[in-house]
């Protein structure tokens, strides 16, 4: 009897947690989709039929705490802090507020990193591997509280310049919104 009950508890726990990819350590990246860059849309307007394929598996980085944490590490390693500070902004715009000039969806941020933007944001095409750009994009979103708390990084082993991403309240993005980005 007791065995059955314990089994039931375990099984229900598995069904609840098993559906969640928060804990995946994505160590080997899936084969790169080399053309994703050009498929990310900045605007919702398309000539003709909407045949542009979805960037593959970008969501997998948004859902994995490990990937977001890697993004955080890269944000430091690639000196993003040089312009954006730790999200507070400097030479570049702040990333922890609600104002998203070029959109707040992962694809938008990915495109921003890859293509660069006028007035200073360089293009990191070829410099940053695509999966890392997705990881950085996921991290940038966590800075504005756009990721679930279970995925967002907690405090780092650095000076605490700002509250941890996991305790940042969710922002309402302004700027480019409503883009039909990443149809399911």
């Amino acid at each position, binding site marked *: 009897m007791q065995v059955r009950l314990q089994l039931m508890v375990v099984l229900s726990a598995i069904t609840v947690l098993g559906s969640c990819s928060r804990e995946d350590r994505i160590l080997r990246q899936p084969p790169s989709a080399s053309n994703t860059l050009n498929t990310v849309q900045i605007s919702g307007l398309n000539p003709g039929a909407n045949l542009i394929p979805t960037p593959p598996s970008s969501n997998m980085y948004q859902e994995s705490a490990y990937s977001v944490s890697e993004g955080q590490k890269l944000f430091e390693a690639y000196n993003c802090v040089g312009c954006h500070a730790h999200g507070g902004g400097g030479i570049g715009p702040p990333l922890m507020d609600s104002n998203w000039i070029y959109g707040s969806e992962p694809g938008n941020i990915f495109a921003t990193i890859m293509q660069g933007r006028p007035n200073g944001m360089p293009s990191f095409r070829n410099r940053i591997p695509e999966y890392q750009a997705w990881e950085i994009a996921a991290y940038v979103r966590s800075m504005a509280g756009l990721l679930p708390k279970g995925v967002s990084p907690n*405090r780092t082993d650095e000076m*605490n310049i700002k*509250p*941890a991403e996991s*305790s940042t309240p969710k922002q309402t993005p302004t700027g480019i919104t409503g883009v039909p980005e990443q149809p399911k």
Partner: protein
Amino acid sequence: MASLNEPIRTPLTLDVSALPSVAFGHRNTTWLANVFYMAIEGMMFALMFATYFYLRTRSTEWPPGHLPPALRYGAANAAIFLVSIIPAWLVRKRAPEGDRRAVRNGLLFLALFALAATLLRAFEFTTLNCRWTDDAYSSTVWVLIGIHSGHLLTELIETIVLLLISFTPKMEGTRLADAAINSDYWYFVVITGLMVDVLIYGTTRFL
């Protein structure tokens, strides 16, 4: 089986029917368990105190970049703690005599003091001059006072429950002993509370 072959034993007897079915003070088993419990909690406090001083050796400035916590509510709370020993002592003294009225009154006052201390504690948090996310010093201060608040809250609830029982006819025998043990635990909360106060208000100013 073996017993069948042995001569029938006629054991002596030890008659315990006259023994009391309730004991006060150190003879009570719950009293002993309470001592063990206080040893566990005391160990936790001791380790947190050690943590506090250990982290202090790792910092040149203490408190690092904060004003020491403001004294107001902390001092008031310390005073309440000291005064509250009186009803606790009363309960502890009168419970073995079976004086239910005195126990009820004592518990009532104890509950009121505990409530006052808990409310003041809430204000105390606003005068710490730091948030727990600031640095290691702030974290230690918050956790020290937080752990103690947990004990305070537990004790408040326990006292209220005992107070409620004391309005029923069930406040008798072992319940009276429990009320007396509750006072011991309150002493523990007072002593640790004063020690925490010395640490976070005293050592930040005078050491």
